[in-house]
Structure formats: C-alpha cells, structure tokens
C-alpha cells in the first residue's frame, strides 16, 4: 500500500459525528515543559468551545501561554520534555490520542495556522508557487496543473498583484505584508475549517496590519471558517472576535462575548490591559494606567490568584486562595477573581489598597511609573 493510501485509511477510521455547529471543544487542556528547574506550567487547565464560522480572540501579555495553547491544540509541540493533558475534540474526534501521522490529515486540511513572523515561516529556497501547491497536491491529490490553477486563484483572492509572476518568485523578493499574504494563502489552500492566527500582524506596519486583518475576516466569512486570533492587542480583537478569552500565566482569567467583555469587564487584569493602551480619543499627555511587574515564573507560580502580586485590587485572600472561574450575571461571561471590577467588593478593595499606599494600586490609578518599578522588584524578588 502506498503511503498516501495509508494516510487516507487513517482518515476513514476517524468516524466524525459532529454536533451541530460545534467545531472545537477543548476541556482542561494543560501543557507543561520539563525544565532543569522543574515543570513549567505554560497552559493550565484551559477549556474553550468554538462554533463553526466564529472567531475567538485570545489576549494576553507575552509569556501568558497563548501561543503554547494554540500550538497544543494543533499538536505542534516539541516531541520531548512536554506533558500535555486534557481533551481536544475537533468535530467530535479526540485529537490528543492521535499520532503525528494521523494528525497529518488534519494539518492544513482541517486546521491551519498563520504564524507571527512571515519572514521565517516560508522556505527561502523554494518558489512561492510550489509552497502553495504542496499541500494541495498532498491532501487533495491534485495534479500539477490543477494545483497551479488553484494557487493562482488563491494568490488573487489574498490580494497579490501580478499573481502569475509572483508564483515564480522567492520569498525574499517580497515585502513583509506580501509574505504574510502568501502565508495566509498557504493556510487557506485546502479550505480548513479552523484557522489559528498567532499574532499574524505583530511584525507588520499599522496600515498593512489593517489590510491583513480585513483579509482574514473576509476570507473567514467567505469560507465559513472558524478562527482563533491570538494577539496581545485588545484593539485588534475588539472589532473582529465574537468571543474573547483573556489569558494570564497559562490560565483563562476571563472569557466573554466581545461586547460583554468590554462593557462589563470583571477581571482586574483585563481592565489593566485595556487602560494601558494609549487611545486616540484621549487628549495628549493623558496618564496611562500601569500594571506593575511582569507575569510570574511558570515553574513556581504564586499560590493564590496568579495575578495577585501585580493586582491593584488584591487582598489577603487573593494571595492564599485561588479563585475559581465563575459565571457572571450575563450568561457566557466567566471570570476568575475574588474582588471583581465593577462590584462593591472590588471598589472597596481598591480604595483600601489606595489609602494604604499599596504600590500596585498607585501604579494602576495614578500611572506612577516608579511605583510600577517597585512592584516589579517585589514580584520578582
């Protein structure tokens, strides 16, 4: 039996019984890396669900585990020194138990990924055309002529001018924005049902960023494809995601439909992230809110709430007892906090911290940069 046939066999044994609408269901996914200092818990029992054609935004600082999460779902983790637990169901099929060769029928065809850096995610010594047709010929068994035709249509649909000529070029002959379009074309080639976009625009200019995000959204709509948009910028997901999950230290600390999240955020971390962004409508020289310090060491995270050491609202309880992810009044809105923003308890906690001159609260409310530096020293001492 040819290797290609074998792969098809595997595909057939996966008898998918998809629930209506539900595409991806991740339950209690944990990923840890073995390091010389101990186990680094990069993703810590994360659960999400994603319906067909919807967009989930995952937001967090660098080091919050958002990229490791998407790689864990895709099964793109290193072979050794990794512990992955929990369940990932894609169209009803459990993915965690599949081998790499079985996963191969999913990669590119069912789920694809666009990476952050378009400079390094293309092969520099292979022509653009062949990089696009590779997966078409592999997964869809096309001959060269068919595949070339589809590649051309793809190039045109992602907005590349002079597509015929570009197919014969190498990645270095193109600008960053063009290369990211190519990477998107490759990801879309086999018509995946789920696209992971891992910081797809961080390496690009603002004007190009807008173009690429619009392109992703348009392609998603046309193909009825679900998308997981991973970013550190709440601005990027605000207008584009149906639901947003905020990650911190490997955990989801708040999850809600986009409008609910912005209207009634409960988690102090989400509030801090939003208020630290300079906004155009604010007058110039307005003071920005600061989250002092940086995310905790994942090998030995703090015992209570992971955000407590940096939190302007934190009380004694936060440092010893970890809050559970609970549902707010609005259905579908989950948060993980003892003294949530916008409640009487939260307000009281913040005022108490402010009057006690706690550096975290001073940094957040007054935007005091020196206080923030003090927090960082304390947190990482």
């Amino acid at each position, binding site marked *: 039996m040819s290797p290609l046939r074998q792969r098809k066999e595997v595909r057939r044994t996966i008898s998918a019984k998809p629930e209506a609408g539900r595409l991806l269901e991740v339950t209690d996914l944990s990923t840890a890396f073995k390091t010389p200092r101990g186990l680094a818990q990069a993703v810590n029992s994360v659960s999400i669900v994603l319906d067909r054609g919807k967009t989930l935004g995952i937001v967090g600082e660098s080091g919050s585990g958002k990229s490791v999460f998407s790689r864990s779902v895709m099964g793109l983790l290193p072979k050794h020194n990794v512990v992955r637990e929990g369940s990932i169901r894609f169209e009803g099929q459990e993915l965690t138990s599949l081998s790499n060769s079985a996963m191969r029928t999913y990669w590119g065809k069912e789920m694809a990924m666009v990476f952050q850096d378009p400079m390094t995610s293309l092969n520099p010594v292979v022509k653009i055309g062949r990089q696009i047709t590779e997966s078409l010929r592999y997964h869809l068994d096309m001959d060269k002529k068919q595949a070339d035709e589809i590649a051309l249509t793809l190039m045109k649909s992602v907005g590349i001018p002079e597509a015929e000529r570009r197919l014969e070029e190498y990645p270095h002959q193109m600008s960053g924005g063009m290369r990211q379009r190519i990477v998107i074309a490759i990801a879309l080639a086999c018509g995946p049902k789920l696209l992971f976009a891992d910081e797809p625009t961080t390496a690009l200019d*603002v004007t190009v960023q807008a173009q690429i995000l619009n392109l992703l959204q348009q392609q998603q709509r046309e193909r009825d494809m679900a998308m997981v948009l991973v970013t*550190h*910028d709440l601005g990027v997901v605000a207008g584009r995601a149906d639901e947003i999950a905020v990650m911190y230290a490997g955990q989801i600390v708040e999850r809600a439909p986009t409008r609910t999240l912005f209207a009634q955020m409960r988690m102090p971390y989400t509030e801090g992230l939003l208020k*630290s962004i300079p906004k*155009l409508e604010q007058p110039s020289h307005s003071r920005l809110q600061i989250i002092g310090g940086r995310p905790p060491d994942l090998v030995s995270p703090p015992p209570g709430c992971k955000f407590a050491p940096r939190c302007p609202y934190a009380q004694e309880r936060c440092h010893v007892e970890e809050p559970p992810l609970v549902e707010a009044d609005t259905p579908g809105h989950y948060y993980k906090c003892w003294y949530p923003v916008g409640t009487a308890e939260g307000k009281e906690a913040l005022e108490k911290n402010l009057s006690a001159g706690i550096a975290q609260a001073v940094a957040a409310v007054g935007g005091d*940069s020196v206080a923030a*530096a003090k927090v960082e020293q304390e947190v990482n001492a």
Partner: protein
Amino acid sequence: MRVEDLVVEFPAGRRMKVYAVSGISLDVKEGETLGLVGESGCGKSTTGRAIMQLPRPTSGRVLFDGRDLTKLKGNELRDMRPQLQLIFQDPISSLNPRRKVVDLVREPLDVWKRGTDKEREAVVAEVLEAVGLDMDSARTKQPHQFSGGQCQRICIARSLVLEPKVIICDEPVSALDVSVQAQILNLLEDMKQRYGLTLVFIAHDLAVVKNVSDRIAVMYLGKLCEVAGPDDLYTRPAHPYTAALLSAIPVPDPSATMKTPASLQGELPSPLAPPSGCRFRTRCPRAEDRCAQEEPQLRPVLAGSDHYVACHFPLIEAAEAPVAAPEATDVSINGH
C-alpha cells in the same frame, strides 16, 4: 533646535541611490516633544540619526543652540554630543550583556571625566532612583537579569546622566508589551518634567505618539506630509495619508464602526525610485494629474495656523468652510 532642508541619500550600487530623507525642515522648540510618525521605511529613523550626525546628512543644516552641527568637525562635534542622546528600540541588545548595570549607567560620566568618583556615584544613584531602579540590584546584576521594560529604564537612565538637552527616542516602546509600554511612556513624561528635556519621539504607532507629543510630524517616503498639534491632527487630519493612518489603528472598542474602505491599499513604493510629484499619489484616493507633475509644498492649512500640510487637495479645506461657520455662531450664543 532647527532642521533645514535635510537630505540623506545612500548609495545603492549601480549608480542608484536610496532617497531616504529628501528635504525635511523642522523646528523643535525647547521643552516640547516632537513626534515623528510613519510606516517603516519612511525615513523617520534616518532623520533622527542624521540630526545626531550619524551618518552625516548629504545636505541641509541642523542648527542646535545656534550652531550648525553639519559644519562641526572632530572635537567640536564631540563636545556637542553629550547634549544630544539617543534611545533605541531594542533595549536588551543596546546594553552590553557582560557588564554590570551600574557600570553601564556610569560609563558616559567616566568617558567625559565628569566630577570625582563620589560625585559620579551620586549622579548614578539619583538617576537610577528617578527611573525606578535601586542601586543595590544595579551594582550586582547584569542586563539579562532584568526584563525588557527594566532594560529600557536602564537605557533611559544612561542617556540622562550627562544631563542632555535633547533626547531622540527611536521607537522606544515598539518592542515592549502594552502594559510595559505604558510604564515607559509615563516614565518619559516624568523625566521630561524633571530634567527639562526636549524629546524627539519616533514611532510608527500614531496612538502612542499622540499620547506623548506636543506636535506631530507625519512622514511618508522621506518627506513630511503634515505637521500639527496632536489633537488637531486627530480631529482634523488634512493629509489623506494621515487620515489613512488614523483609520488603520485598531480601536479597543467593539462598538466602534470599522472604517474598512478608508484603509490604505498597496505598500510603500521603493525609495530607490520614488514617484514624481507627490510621493503619496500612487496610494492616494484623491490623487489627480497635478499630483504627478507638481510636488506639493508644506504650507499652513489656514493662514497663520501652526497646522501644516503638503498636499494639493487637503481634506480639510473642503470640510472647513461649512463646519466653521455654525461653530462660530454657537460660540457667540453660548457667550451671551
């Protein structure tokens, strides 16, 4: 400080030239923050470096304290250097990884032989405290033991020890997380107050620049498009490029309407062969024949205003007339 008709060109082989900066004139007033924005490749960093004479501009003048830096040579230029400092984009790679932080911050003082050992120590301690780092950890630690945000604080401290008049910040926050970015922006504001600095703030993010600047200059392909106060620029952009830049910024508010059609098509043309006339015309929605033939000069939007634009068909003139009249009547009504 005043920049007049600054031109920077680099040879690109085969008799070709990269027109990085083509005739920029700017005034930087004492104590203000001038923001310089544009896409990558528009020449904003080159402008910043040419002001420092690194590299020397091809032509033009840079007047600082009444002296033309482009004419100064050797020691004369060197003597001016402590007054002009640079902060770079990547804080970690701009610090020597093998040295202690306290030595890194002290180095400029040692090079210039300022004061006695004790005095130098005191200056370092004061500056470190101002940027929020403590002397003990600076004495024992090396840059890699600090986070990116703290390294940028170290870079800021290092540029401050010589008490410069002007600091040119070249994308100081682009490599940092949003939360850290806010810390550094607030810190720069504080330092500006405390040390009476004049800042030239170079960045590609208009929202960041708007937050820190007193005036903003928008650059496109080596030329200035528009110079205005930040609030003016935001509420009434006159150049189509500024408008496009503004609409491209993602707004962290889900109810904000998406300005999809306004987003800019295409990419920056090559600076090896910039378009004739107005350099933005190849991507401009308002471009006409005149834009290809005649280069627009920077001129005030309204007579006597400090809002300048280089465009034949600015957005503001059309909008100005009908809007201005009712506003004026409103004011008089409120006044009564």
